[in-house]
């Protein structure tokens, strides 16, 4: 049986994954930490550390799973844009993300794919300008 990692290790691993996905700690967490610090902690330690930080599927693949799931669920534009940014940082090209989101239209309907593509377009636009 493997040793259970302590809380600090889990959190640190989560921060590392966030960084690998192109996010500075403050950018993602600052607002959430202000209103719900415990939730922010769990998001990093569990969401990014325990789950996304697992071996077995590389981070690049995971970022595509995240983006398409959020798109299919109808997450807000901010959330989709954040995960689009992660996916680009993980090495996907915009054209590949467009392909994936086109397939989302098949499984979740056109409206959700359209919203996600609009979020991606705006993310790309702000990146091109920045």
């Amino acid at each position, binding site marked *: 049986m493997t040793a259970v990692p302590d809380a600090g290790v889990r959190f640190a691993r989560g921060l590392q994954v966030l960084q690998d996905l192109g996010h500075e700690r403050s950018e993602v967490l600052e607002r959430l930490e202000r209103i719900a610090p415990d939730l922010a902690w769990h998001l990093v330690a569990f969401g990014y550390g325990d789950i996304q930080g697992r071996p077995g599927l590389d981070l690049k693949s995971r970022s595509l799973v995240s983006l398409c799931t959020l798109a299919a669920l109808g997450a807000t534009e901010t959330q989709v844009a954040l995960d689009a940014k992660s996916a680009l940082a993980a090495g996907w090209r915009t054209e590949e993300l*467009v392909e994936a989101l*086109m397939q989302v239209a098949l499984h979740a309907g056109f*409206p959700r*794919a359209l919203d996600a593509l*609009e979020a991606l*377009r705006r993310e790309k636009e702000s990146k091109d300008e920045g």
Partner: protein
Amino acid sequence: MNAHRSEPACGVAQPNPRFDRGLEVLGHRDAADALKRLRDLGEIAPDFAAYFVEYALGDIAGRPGLDLKVRALLAVAVLAALGVSADQLAGEIRHALVLGWSRAELIELMTQLSVYAGYPVAIRGLEVLADVAPGED
């Protein structure tokens, strides 16, 4: 451009009845708004914009069996219930108004949606409707 598509998206070089039928359906819309959104989509996903016109509008919305006015009401109901972006919902509401539904009828629709999708969905739908079609109230 995707090699699977033989013609440029949204700029048809060869005869393409599916695309034409889609444009015809689009022609019934509040065209300026719909075309702006289609152009935005074409910027990042030109093939998808073409699929949208050919398939969603031409093949499906353009079918006989239900008229466009009824389809527009369905679209407003489903988009409101799905909770898609206000931009998309507003576009469909404009479309429904253009096709002859009244503001009062759309308010009635949102009221019925509260039963199937909950009050938050109905209230948000009414807010978007109020932005698109400000009334006396």
